[in-house]
């Protein structure tokens, strides 16, 4: 590779791409978020292979068939992994490190990433705590704590 010898004064042009997004949650997502608003967790089950999805889906990724069976699941699960987060996404330090846990939800084959309200270990049974005021968003779930 040759060194760049030909120098020019004007080297950089700055700009911005200004778009923002409004996402719909989809057929299954809409049901899931409405249930969160009611303080419930729901999943869906494939009629062919029996796989239980949370968050729920209208199709099974393995069988590629329609799923129409939605059901409520317990607000509890098992910690499969956890981490203590120190940095924000633009690499500034958080005021206080946050704890997150990957929780396998009881009664499903799926997992959710949720706040850990206290220190947890892999294998801990946890309960899922909802906020008092709910709007139909993942933030309706306050976090998990050991049972």
């Amino acid at each position, binding site marked *: 590779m040759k060194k*760049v010898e*030909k120098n*020019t*004064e004007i*080297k*950089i042009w700055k700009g911005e791409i200004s778009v923002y997004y*409004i996402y719909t949650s989809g*057929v299954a997502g*809409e049901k899931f978020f409405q249930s969160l608003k009611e303080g419930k967790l729901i999943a869906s089950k494939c009629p062919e292979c029996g796989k239980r999805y949370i968050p729920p889906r209208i199709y099974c990724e393995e069988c590629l068939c329609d799923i129409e069976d939605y059901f409520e699941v317990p607000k509890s699960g098992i910690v499969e992994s956890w981490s203590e987060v120190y940095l924000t996404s633009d690499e500034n330090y958080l005021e206080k490190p946050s704890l997150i846990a990957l929780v396998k939800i009881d009664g499903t084959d799926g997992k959710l990433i949720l706040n850990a309200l206290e220190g947890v270990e892999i294998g801990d049974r946890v309960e899922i705590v909802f906020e008092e005021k709910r709007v139909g968003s993942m933030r309706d779930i306050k976090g998990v704590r050991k049972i």
Partner: protein
Amino acid sequence: MKVRGKDLKKEEFDRIVKIEYRPKLLYAWDSGYAVGKFLQGLKEGKILGIRCRKCERILVPPRAFCEFCFVPIDEWVELKDTGRVNTFSISYISWDVRRLEKPEIPAVIEIDGASPGIGILHLLGEVKPEEVRVGMRVKAVWKKESERIGAITDILYFKPLKGEE
């Protein structure tokens, strides 16, 4: 054939759960050797072109290699700041889809001194929309020297060149 899909009417869209996301997409693009020198030329009130020794085309906007011959080029040519309208449009819609009262007139302008058919995108000004014609001769209207920063907008627009048709 079954076609599925739920088209949302406005009331339905207002009711469903929506998630908003506002990314901040800021960029600092390297101008590269060719465009960097072109921008410098604009700051000095000149339109620069570049000549491929192999196919002998004189090109603008300049580039560091010829896309036909695939050889590097660095023979700079100062072009005139006049040209001919190759095609134009009269736009009543802004970049973010708002309706404009006063239309903008974008055009592809073949620059004098470059090879035939070689043009740049810019705006036309000081002309009534109904008077614009393909083939019209135009001249660049520059910003004041102190206001030029080395950008395509150092040329405010191209205006009709009177007396030459």
